[in-house]
């Protein structure tokens, strides 16, 4: 009995049954467990991805008319000022949001990493916006930013200042969307940092306390070095998330004024779903995919290096 068990574990954790007659047949039947998912995965993710590669080499419209044009779509993209502006806007948006999300998230996590009732309630408040949908979030912030009767306009008026039209200003539209986004998304980085802070070994703090290290010294020499990996992970996760900015810009500014707040995904949406220049939109999608794949690979590398980091 015990030897049989030993042999089994030698075969690896996946094969728990000794080989027997007809095992080959039953192995094929094992595929039935993964087949339903694989079917959907192949039909709705893999096929559209590869069909997209192919489609991006065509001039194609909604009605199925298509003509092979090689890399013409990509060439057109590289000269399209609206697309290049959208790429620039996307990166600018990432600069506006990702560092702020990481730093505010870390600050909140440090302040709220305690087991009091107040801290629990405050954690709940800061995460609550994360469960709202993008359409609610934009509705709330539109009536905060509105120059006529908006919350900020009222506040400015109370100080005797004229209202500011945040969402119709080329300089302020994207920062306003960034503030909305930080408000919406702050819960996730805070929670990830809180989880990391829980993992810092108690002994390190005890040792620091014995050395009479103050608050800042402990933070700088004990806490922050222990959560470096989480910090990198949060930055990458947020880059991937904020790269996909769409709903906020679509609903708050429609990309305007004068393309000042149009991100890549909104460009893709407009070209694909309102101008129906499908081949061109898919080509833009490939470039987006390239950027996100790089970030996802970086995430994989960081997540894998659990100890080394």
């Amino acid at each position, binding site marked *: 009995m015990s030897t049989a068990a030993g042999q089994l574990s030698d075969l690896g954790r996946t094969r728990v049954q000794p080989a027997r007659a007809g095992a080959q047949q039953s192995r094929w039947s*094992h595929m039935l467990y993964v087949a339903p998912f*694989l079917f959907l995965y192949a039909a*709705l993710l893999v096929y559209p991805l590869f069909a997209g590669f192919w489609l991006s080499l065509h001039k194609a419209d909604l009605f199925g008319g298509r003509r092979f044009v090689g890399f013409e779509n990509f060439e057109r993209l590289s000269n399209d000022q609206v697309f290049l502006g959208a790429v620039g806007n996307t990166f600018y948006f990432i600069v506006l949001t990702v560092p702020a999300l990481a730093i505010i998230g870390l600050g909140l996590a440090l302040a709220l990493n305690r087991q009091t009732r107040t801290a629990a309630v405050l954690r709940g408040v800061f995460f609550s916006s994360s469960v709202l949908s993008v359409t609610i979030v934009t509705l709330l912030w539109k009536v905060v930013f509105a120059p006529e009767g908006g919350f900020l306009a009222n506040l400015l008026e109370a100080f005797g200042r004229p209202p500011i039209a945040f969402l119709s200003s080329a300089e302020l539209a994207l920062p306003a969307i960034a503030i909305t986004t930080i408000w919406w998304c702050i819960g996730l980085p805070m929670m990830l940092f809180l989880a990391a802070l829980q993992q810092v070994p108690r002994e390190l703090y005890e040792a620091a306390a014995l050395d009479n290290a103050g608050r800042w010294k402990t933070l700088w020499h004990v806490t922050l070095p222990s959560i470096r990996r989480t910090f990198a992970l949060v930055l990458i996760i947020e880059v991937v998330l904020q790269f996909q900015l769409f709903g906020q810009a679509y609903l708050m500014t429609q990309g305007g004024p004068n393309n000042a707040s149009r991100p890549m995904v909104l460009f893709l949406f407009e070209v694909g779903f309102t101008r129906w220049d499908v081949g061109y939109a898919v080509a833009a999608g490939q470039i987006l995919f390239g950027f996100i794949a790089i970030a996802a690979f970086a995430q994989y590398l960081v997540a894998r290096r659990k100890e080394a980091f």
Partner: protein
Amino acid sequence: MRTQLASGAVGRAFGDRLILAATIALAIVMVIPMLWAVGLSLKTNQELLVDTQSVLKAPWTLINYYDILIGSGVFRWLLNSIIVSTGMSLGVLVLSSLAGYGFARLEFPGRNVIFVLVLFGLAIPEQAVILVRHQLFSDLDLHNTYAGLMLPGMSAPFGVFLMTQYFKAIPTEIDEAAMLDNASRFKIFWRVLLPMTLPAQATLGIFTFLHAWNDYWWPMVSGTNQQMYTLTVGIASTQQNFAESAGLGYLMAQAVFASLPVLIVYMFFQKYIVRAVSGAAT
């Protein structure tokens, strides 16, 4: 020495207070947009046209909520959201559990290669496939159906990845013991292992539900018939014509009403929701 320690402790307590005060101030800033919307929803549309500062002063009214109750698409959208989110979550749980068990425990030709190919899918953003997917659903006549709204979410590989990891973490001795009792493969999966994965099921279920509930792009381009709007799409449709729409107070009441279900669920299941969202991200 002793006095030094004491003064350090006092300084620490004072610093703690200061940090707490700053955090509370930030929390107030955090809830201002929500309170502002609630305030606006308690005023008549006519009054808000003149001046929104009146929000701070009585009288308040529930007329906007009454208007929603007697005639609004909100209930239909709410129902659609519940159907789509529940259906998608159940679908993901079933498919991911089966596939996770298959990848973690069973041998079949090409298993490792297939698993790696599924992992690659984690890096494919929706935006890269949505156009072809949209055409595919047109060809299959799936737009404006519940299946059409649910199926794309079920093709995402995240759940399979999560469940595979979870099944792998269960010691194989448990299968072996059940095997000795002559239990069939499916019985081992269904009766023995699946109940052990309940925490992962909860995480995945909540995460999928929230994702489906808040999803915007796909339901907007697939469920274009007003009867098939989800809550998220429906609320968006009302703000497109922001100025000439039913009125600010009514719009805000609709937004508050639409946020209530998810906020109430959040209040009761906060711990699980937070765990699901942050667990899914890493």
